[in-house]
Structures are given as structure tokens and as C-alpha cells.
């Protein structure tokens, strides 16, 4: 079974989509944790997808994005980067700027986290 359609739906519909190992409540990988923390610092409301329940999720995701590693962060449908880029953008203030531009000035007014299960 292919997850491509479901993955695309999350990427297209979520303001900020984070494909990670584990969930925000139970992070299973240091790099996913780095990306999640940077997004939280920037005040982003994150829609998280755990890629671990089925190896096919990661395969379909990387085929769609052309990005080989996890985590992957998308804002309004566009790949912004993995953990290194998100940390770098956050520390320079660029991440907040991008979020404001794409999501509006008040993007951080109400911060919440959502977990979407694909499998």
C-alpha cells in the first residue's frame, strides 16, 4: 500500500508539517528532537507525522520530497529543510520571518501540536 496520497494531503493542508521519528510527546530520534525544539522556539503550530510505524511511509515521503533523511519540515506545502537547516534558520531569525510571511503575522498567537497517524 502506498502512503503518497495521505502524505501529500498532510503536506498541502498543514501550515507546518513535521515528518519525524516518534511523536512530539515521545520523540525517538535526536534530529527529530532538534527540529521540533527549533519549531517550538519559533512559535510554530506543528502537525507531526510519525514515520516509524511502517518503513513504506519514509520511502514514499522521500520519493515525493526528494529528501533522503528524517526529519523533514514543510511550510504551506514547501520543503523548508531537515534538522540542520531548521536550527540554522531559527537561530538567525529566518524561520520566524518565513513563518510570518507564509502564515501571517499572528501565526504564533495560538500554538498547538497535532499528530496525524498515517498507518
Amino acid at each position, binding site marked *: 500500500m502506498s502512503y503518497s496520497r495521505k502524505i501529500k494531503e498532510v503536506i498541502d493542508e498543514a501550515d507546518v508539517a513535521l515528518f519525524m521519528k516518534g511523536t512530539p510527546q515521545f520523540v525517538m530520534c535526536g534530529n527529530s528532537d532538534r527540529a521540533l525544539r527549533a519549531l517550538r522556539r519559533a512559535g510554530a503550530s506543528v502537525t507531526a507525522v510519525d514515520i516509524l510505524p511502517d518503513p513504506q511511509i519514509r520511502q514514499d515521503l522521500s520519493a515525493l520530497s*526528494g529528501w533522503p533523511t528524517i526529519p523533514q519540515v514543510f511550510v504551506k506545502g514547501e520543503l*523548508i529543510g531537515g534538522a*540542520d537547516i531548521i536550527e540554522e534558520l531559527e537561530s538567525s531569525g529566518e524561520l520566524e520571518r518565513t513563518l510570518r510571511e507564509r502564515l501571517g503575522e499572528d501565526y504564533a498567537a495560538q500554538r498547538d501540536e497535532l499528530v496525524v497517524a498515517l498507518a
Partner: protein
Amino acid sequence: MSADRLKVLLHSAFPDADDLDVVDRTGGGDHFQVTVAAPSLAGLSLVEQHRRVYEALAAPLADGTIHELRIKTKGSA
């Protein structure tokens, strides 16, 4: 895989690099920190810069010899 082998792959992808380094972060030959600064990266977004690094290391990424890759890139003048 040794850091030196990754360096060879990166040097052939970025012959113009001003700064190119690979550090084996754990000594286990599968967690690496890669640094590349090259004029050919200038003007590209960070996503595109990292994509170039992934392309250069596609083989060791695909066969699982690289478990974790940290990347720092810069488009140097």
C-alpha cells in the same frame, strides 16, 4: 565507511570548495558532520545546497552506510 572516502566523493562534487570537511562524530564510521563552502553553492537556498550534498553522497546514503548526516553548507564568494 571512513570520513576520507566521503571527502573524496565531496571533492569530486565540489571541486571549487574553499572549505570541505568531514568529521566522524562517533568514531563508528556512520555518523558524520559534513561542512562544505563553495562558490558553486552561492545563490542557492539552504534546501538546494543540502540537496547537492545529498546527491554527492547518494550511494553511501542509499546503501545505509551513513546512518546520520549533519550538514553545514555555505555559498562562498
